[in-house]
């Protein structure tokens, strides 16, 4: 009786009840007046846990689950036998709401799904909508969007680096990473006025052109950032504790990784050189010179190495984007989607009509559908939009990379220790806003 009772208590964290209906707890204090820290129970109550499996609940409110993820683990001692993930605590129905919004009105919602990658989501959504409208954006807009994507990739990877290092027990890299992230957020603020929920793009262009001092700031960042990255690299890459806590954990072979639909650094750490920017390019990514880092073991350590290298490659892309940024208009000259200047709206009849139609009805794409995938920091992020010719999409589907990546967690943690679950979960780089949507 005592053995199972203890299991219930551990599992439910609620008071067990004995035969008399009185609350019963496993005492933590020895009855002979020993130290209260001693965890021995009196012999009569000492449970025999051999071979008995225990149920452990992590989350949904737990700092190491990076949001509201709940994992129910079956443990044999400290070894995970089975993992049952529960998601949906942050479900907001973005896809449903999108069916009631015009295309430009959906862009603020894309900020809020993967909130560490807002500019990247804005760009991805705008690309999808432009495919649906049949619009070719301007050259300057393309380069600005590349900058936005790579800046948000750096932000996202830095947050990942900081939080993961805290999960595993290193605090200093967190501070260094978040300092650099702050630099980018300041640049974004000067660009569009918001830090986190940027709503940077519009269908057919951008919400704003970059301010005058943006390029010098970005240049300074690309010069300074590799130094900081080198410091983090020195701090972690050959750190015995870091290596010991990450090597050999959550291994996915290339075939498994592809079959489980992993994408992004998770997939590449497993030795699969699939990067949407290289294989199904968008925004002229094929003209930029950058490498796709690929791991060899598919464990948590390789995922860390891949992300570190991606930070360097993103800096390289930013340098090239700064060099090639052309002058010219940011928005397309197409008044189906882009408003004419306000001064013309008050003096020119046609411009006023465009204003009225766009604001009151919204732009209408032709009947059709498009799936546009981009390489978000988490992996292949796809927007699938179906239009029936009205100003609101019939269906707006987000293909969330970390949702699919997380679905493999049960496979990855099985057989590992409880403390490794935290490291493996951190290595997936989940954002619950994107997973639950």
């Amino acid at each position, binding site marked *: 009786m005592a053995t*199972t*009772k203890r*299991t*219930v208590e551990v*599992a*439910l964290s*609620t008071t067990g*009840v004995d035969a008399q209906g009185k609350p019963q707890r496993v005492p933590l204090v020895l009855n002979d007046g020993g130290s209260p820290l001693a965890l021995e129970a009196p012999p009569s109550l000492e449970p025999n846990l051999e071979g008995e499996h*225990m*149920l452990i*609940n992590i989350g949904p409110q737990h700092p190491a689950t990076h949001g509201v993820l709940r994992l*129910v683990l*079956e443990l044999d001692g400290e070894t995970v036998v089975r993992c*049952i993930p*529960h*998601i*949906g605590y942050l*479900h907001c129905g973005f*896809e*449903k*709401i999108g069916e009631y919004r015009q295309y430009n009105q959906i862009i603020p919602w894309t900020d809020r799904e993967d909130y560490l990658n807002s500019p990247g989501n804005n760009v991805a959504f705008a690309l999808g909508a432009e495919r649906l409208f049949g619009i070719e954006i301007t050259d300057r807009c393309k380069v600005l969007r590349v900058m936005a994507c790579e800046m948000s990739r750096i932000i996202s990877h830095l947050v990942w680096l900081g939080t993961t290092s805290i999960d595993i027990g290193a605090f200093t890299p967190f501070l260094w990473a978040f300092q650099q992230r702050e630099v980018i957020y300041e640049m974004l603020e000067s660009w569009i006025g918001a830090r986190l929920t940027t709503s940077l793009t519009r269908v057919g262009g951008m919400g704003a052109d970059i301010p005058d001092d943006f390029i010098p700031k970005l240049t300074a960042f690309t010069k300074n950032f590799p130094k900081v990255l080198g410091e983090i690299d020195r701090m972690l890459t050959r750190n015995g504790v870091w290596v010991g806590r990450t090597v*050999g954990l959550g*291994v996915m*072979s*290339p075939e*498994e990784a*592809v*079959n*489980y*639909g992993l994408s992004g650094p998770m997939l590449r750490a*497993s*030795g699969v*050189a*699939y990067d949407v920017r*290289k*294989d*199904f*390019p968008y925004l002229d990514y*094929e003209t930029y010179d950058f490498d796709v880092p*690929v791991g*060899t*073991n*598919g464990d948590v350590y390789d995922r860390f190495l891949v992300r570190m290298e991606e930070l360097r490659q993103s800096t390289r892309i930013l340098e090239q984007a700064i060099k090639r940024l052309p002058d010219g208009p940011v928005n397309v000259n197409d008044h189906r989607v882009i408003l004419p200047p306000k001064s013309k709206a008050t003096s020119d009849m046609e411009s006023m009509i465009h204003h009225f139609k766009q604001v009151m009805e919204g732009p209408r794409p*032709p009947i*059709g*559908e*498009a*799936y546009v*995938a981009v390489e978000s920091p988490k992996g*292949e992020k*796809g927007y*699938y939009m179906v239009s*029936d010719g009205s100003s609101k999409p*019939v*269906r707006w589907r987000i*293909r969330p990379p970390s*949702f699919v990546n*997380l*679905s493999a967690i049960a496979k990855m943690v099985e057989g590992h220790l409880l403390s490794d679950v935290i490291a493996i979960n951190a290595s997936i780089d989940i954002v619950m806003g994107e997973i639950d*949507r």
Partner: protein
Amino acid sequence: MSKGSFSPVIAGSAVTNAAAPVTPKNIPNRGGAMNPSVDAIRAQFPTAIKRAEVTWGETVIIVDRTQVHDLILWLHDDATQKYDYLSDVTAVEFRDFEQPIEVVWHIRSLPFRRFLRVKVEIEKGSEMAVPSVWDIYKSADWLERECYDMFGITFAGHPDLRRLLMWEQYKEGYPLRKDFPLRGRFSRSEQLRQALAANPEARYSKEELSIADAFEDLPEDMRRRLGSGERTGE
């Protein structure tokens, strides 16, 4: 850690003498080069493809419901196709209630750098069921569960088709169906009443409690509630 078990997969490795991929430009609304896999499918499954079209540069095939599993399995296994990556499973319901609901699979062939959209049309009033591709792609696990959760489409052959984003005893129906109002089916007061009446203690399913052999030790009332299928958290 055995490094020998790892042989890298290179995307595009099966494409010989082809130019490097480029950003598509000036894509027409209809028409354009069709994915070469469509002809191969037509040769292999003469009756499977009802319609094939190219929309905004992407090839779409509308497939017979009974043959879709075999078709995707063949695309996955065949050495000349190698559609090894399932990007997405979802469904589309149109505002026009006459139009059938579409179940959409987005599949990629990484070695050949191909992308194909496979669709099955479910006529209104017919059984909302399609075959599961979970036995081909493990990534279909949660994607199909989500689709079931949001549209009520049953994926026959899925091992664990439960609600995923909504909780298990969610009674309002399938949120992404067009007959589901944006604010939910129940009134706010009813939603609030149900949330307050929920039992936060019963956060574990019976299956999960059986892991710890804990079910028998629960208080009598909780055992009764769980036994009658009541659950709140999940």
